[in-house]
């Protein structure tokens, strides 16, 4: 085989690059973004060059125009209208900037208590499952309360922070037991199904979980492939946020709102054709009051089981499934 000369190699390289870039679309809403940024700048200049009486206003306005790379401003209006665009966006608010800030903020969370409230709904919007979780990253203590809207089942899991030691409380059956609840290893996906007696069964499938802003490698992929885009600044329940959208495959969309000051996630809505998962996040200081949310014990009239039930293996331990 004859080696290509430089011109031939260059031409082939160019052709190949065009092929590889063929699926690269323009960013959505680019024209509108440019107009918004352009208008903000011209408005600031107009005020600054106007009547001296408004000089103070001009100064205030110019302070809200962040230069490249600085922290975005919060929404001063606090309208509480979910989805409304905030006008005072910084000049260089970009998907990579916001992603980096969020990644960094999530990596420095040793001194806070995470509170997440999750609502699963089916394709018709009917709530099927709710989950409320408190996590103290510093000690590894966790409390999770789950409710199955269909069966009426309610389970509380309290992890002590001592390895995998946990107690599980079944409120429907008024029983509780000691258990070992291991955190799912990183990189393992589970499929949730229902057993013959209505119990929840989690089966590891071995596939990788996905979620940019939650995993640096996937964030990198999402940025590189353009599946993560910046929608803009929005006021979410009165809080200034930045809205990102991740569309890994058609018909599967995850919208993420991060706080415009701390860059920590505020809400995440993952929507597919058959289900929607809405999670609201709070990042709270480790005060005695917040740490108390991690506590949990079975009420005195609940019966303690002698062992941990394993429904898949047919081990009931007196649970009565």
């Amino acid at each position, binding site marked *: 085989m004859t080696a290509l000369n430089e011109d031939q*190699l260059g031409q082939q390289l160019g052709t190949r690059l065009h092929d590889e870039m063929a699926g690269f679309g323009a960013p959505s809403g680019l024209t509108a973004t440019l107009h918004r940024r352009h208008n903000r700048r011209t408005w600031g200049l107009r005020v600054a060059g106007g009547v001296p009486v408004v000089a103070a206003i001009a100064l205030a306005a110019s302070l809200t125009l962040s230069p490249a*790379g600085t922290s975005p401003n919060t929404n001063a209006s606090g309208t509480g209208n979910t989805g409304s665009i905030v006008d005072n966006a910084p000049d260089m608010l970009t998907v990579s900037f916001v992603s980096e800030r969020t990644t960094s903020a999530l990596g420095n969370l040793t001194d806070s208590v995470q509170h997440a409230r999750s609502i699963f709904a089916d394709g018709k919007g009917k709530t099927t499952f709710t989950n409320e979780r408190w996590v103290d990253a510093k000690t590894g203590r966790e409390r999770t309360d789950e409710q199955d809207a269909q069966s009426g089942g309610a389970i509380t899991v309290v992890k002590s922070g001592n390895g995998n030691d946990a107690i599980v409380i079944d409120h429907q059956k008024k029983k509780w037991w000691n258990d070992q609840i291991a955190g799912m290893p990183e990189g393992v996906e589970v499929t949730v199904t229902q057993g013959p007696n209505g119990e929840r069964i989690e089966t590891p499938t071995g596939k990788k979980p996905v979620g940019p802003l939650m995993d640096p490698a996937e964030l990198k992929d999402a940025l590189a492939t353009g599946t993560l885009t910046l929608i803009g600044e929005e006021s979410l329940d009165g809080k200034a946020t930045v809205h990102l959208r991740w569309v890994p495959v058609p018909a599967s969309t995850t919208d993420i709102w991060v706080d415009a000051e701390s860059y920590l996630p505020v809400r995440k809505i993952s929507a597919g054709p058959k289900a929607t998962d809405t999670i609201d996040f709070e990042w709270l200081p480790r005060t005695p009051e917040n740490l108390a949310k991690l506590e949990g014990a079975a009420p005195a009239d609940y019966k303690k089981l002698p062992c941990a039930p394993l429904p898949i293996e047919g081990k009931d331990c007196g649970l009565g499934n």
Partner: protein
Amino acid sequence: MRVDPSFDTFVEERSAALLRLAYLLTGDRGHAEDLLQTALLRTMRRWSKARDAPEAYVRHVLVNLSRDRIRGLLRRPRETPLPEDRDAFRTNDPGLEAVGNRRLVADAVATLPIRQRQVIVLRFFEDLSVEQTAALVGCSPGTVKSYTSRALGRLRELLGDQHDTQEMRVFQ
């Protein structure tokens, strides 16, 4: 200040192509979008001057910005590992596994030093002549030829390795 409608038309028609150029110059989609926004904003503000050859104007700004970005990288915040989050959305789509492996040549180009990368992209992706490339990059035609030769040699090595291991005969 009103924006000339011809600018909007230009953005709608050419932004995808310009984003591809920005991507090849930076090797990163997020940074490419940053650069493109900044370049288009500058073009918008100087539209009366740029409107005769807007694409050349934007290309010039992109090349300059991509060089500046290398310096700016040292000032960027470092990424830190994230804690495990079991609430992360999970999907069963196996197609996701393959994402990221589709840009063999673009990834190889991204490993080149910035000057070599600019020269390769401008000459063979944008189809510019040696002289046009020299004017944009700010060096002599001889230097462009030298960069081109070195970059092609490196790419030949990189992509030769790929086709050995992945049975993809990129260059036959």
